[in-house]
């Protein structure tokens, strides 16, 4: 079973040299810490920055320089700043190679719900609907089950949707899954020490697993 950093570490392996990547809030943010040496990646922050760097040193925070999570950040050499229209323009035009974001639910056909729980205060979708509707490659980073113990990999989403038929891959504390074009979750890798049966029990949607699903190698 992986912890949050383990999920982030595993996802980092999906990032290829030369990728422009948008990281959502939460576990996705952690992915930046595990991008391998020698893999050149540019992080986009959808408030208007390409080339996001690490947090600033104490005392060097710049209120004019934040990321989409409103955190103070830095820029790397070669970064560029642009307005919100261009930022979402490049997202819509699929110039961003990979989007990694969290989810409350993902369905067998790649629908995602991650912005609204009926009856609870709704904060808004921010840029999530734009990202999931446009990105050519989306990986969801999330816990496999919710706090009530219910699976978040479902036959169909029960919560209001963020986007339809858009998620390609999911990494949870239990494993790595492809969302198949014909529908269903294909188990690609088991988290260390986790059996296919355990995963099957935690997955409400249709799960496809070969007999010899490998255990993942993290880090």
């Amino acid at each position, binding site marked *: 079973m992986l912890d949050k950093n383990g999920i982030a570490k595993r996802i980092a392996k999906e990032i290829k040299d030369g990728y422009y990547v948008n990281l959502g809030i939460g576990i996705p943010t952690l992915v930046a810490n595990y991008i391998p040496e020698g893999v050149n990646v540019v992080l986009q922050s959808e408030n208007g920055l390409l080339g996001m760097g690490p947090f600033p040193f104490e005392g060097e925070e710049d209120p*004019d320089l934040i990321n989409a999570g409103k955190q103070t950040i830095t820029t790397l050499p070669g970064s560029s700043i642009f307005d919100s229209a261009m930022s979402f323009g490049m997202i819509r035009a699929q110039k961003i190679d990979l989007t990694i974001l969290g989810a409350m639910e993902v369905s067998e056909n790649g629908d995602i719900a991650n912005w609204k729980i009926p009856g609870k205060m709704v904060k808004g979708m921010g840029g999530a609907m734009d990202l999931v509707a446009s990105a050519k490659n989306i990986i969801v980073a999330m816990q496999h089950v919710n706090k009530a113990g219910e699976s978040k990999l479902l036959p169909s989403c029960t919560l209001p949707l963020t986007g339809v038929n858009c998620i390609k891959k999911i990494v949870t504390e239990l494993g790595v899954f492809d969302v198949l074009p014909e529908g269903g979750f294909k188990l690609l890798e088991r988290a260390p020490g986790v059996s296919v049966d355990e995963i099957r029990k935690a997955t409400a949607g249709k799960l496809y697993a070969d007999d010899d699903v490998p255990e993942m190698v993290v880090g």
Partner: protein
Amino acid sequence: MINKVVANADEAIADITDGQTLMLGGFGLCGIPENCISALVKKGVKDLTCISNNAGVDDFGIGLMLKQRQVKKMISSYVGENAEFERQLLSGELEVELIPQGTLATRCLAAGYGMPAIFTPAGVGTEVAEGKETRNFNGKDYLMEYAFDADFAIVKAWKGDTAGNLIFRSTSRNFNPVMAMAGKITIAEVEELVEVGQLDPDHIHTPGVYVHRIFQGKDYEKRIEQRTVRSKEQG
């Protein structure tokens, strides 16, 4: 050159009246028009529809206007942490329209570029699509979204000249240039107001033609919403 300078925020917003639609630049608390917001609070104008990506926090930004019940409707993508906002929303005092961030930005762009509507895939198949025209291009579905129609756009820039040309600093640019283009009347407050000829024409983000009033702002707090740092040891 045409001189767009007004004395201060009070003068800049003097003709904003109850019930109008305002765009306010900024992302979170970054790049928000602090001076104009203060002046709007002072003026007490109410029943406003505010188009802004966020709604400030309880005691800063648009939150100050919310506290005074000046806002009838918020059009935003994310309304964040704001207890008074939540109270007004749940009690039905405040109307909120949540729209995707890119749709928000592009509807501003559409207004500034004279395009009555644009197409975006954001929200297709979700409740955002309800009542909207969906259209398929090259096998992909898009929603048709309309250009915004705002009485005023209020933006904050880093530098500006007397002709209304604006330059933004770092990620405080965000929605400011696209909203500056989108208002029927655009008001810009700047940290540094300079004479014409002081700004490089190649570096202008918002040409003065889009700006109707400009003034030298003062006392910028520039509050940080999420102060995240690393220690020098972490390196």
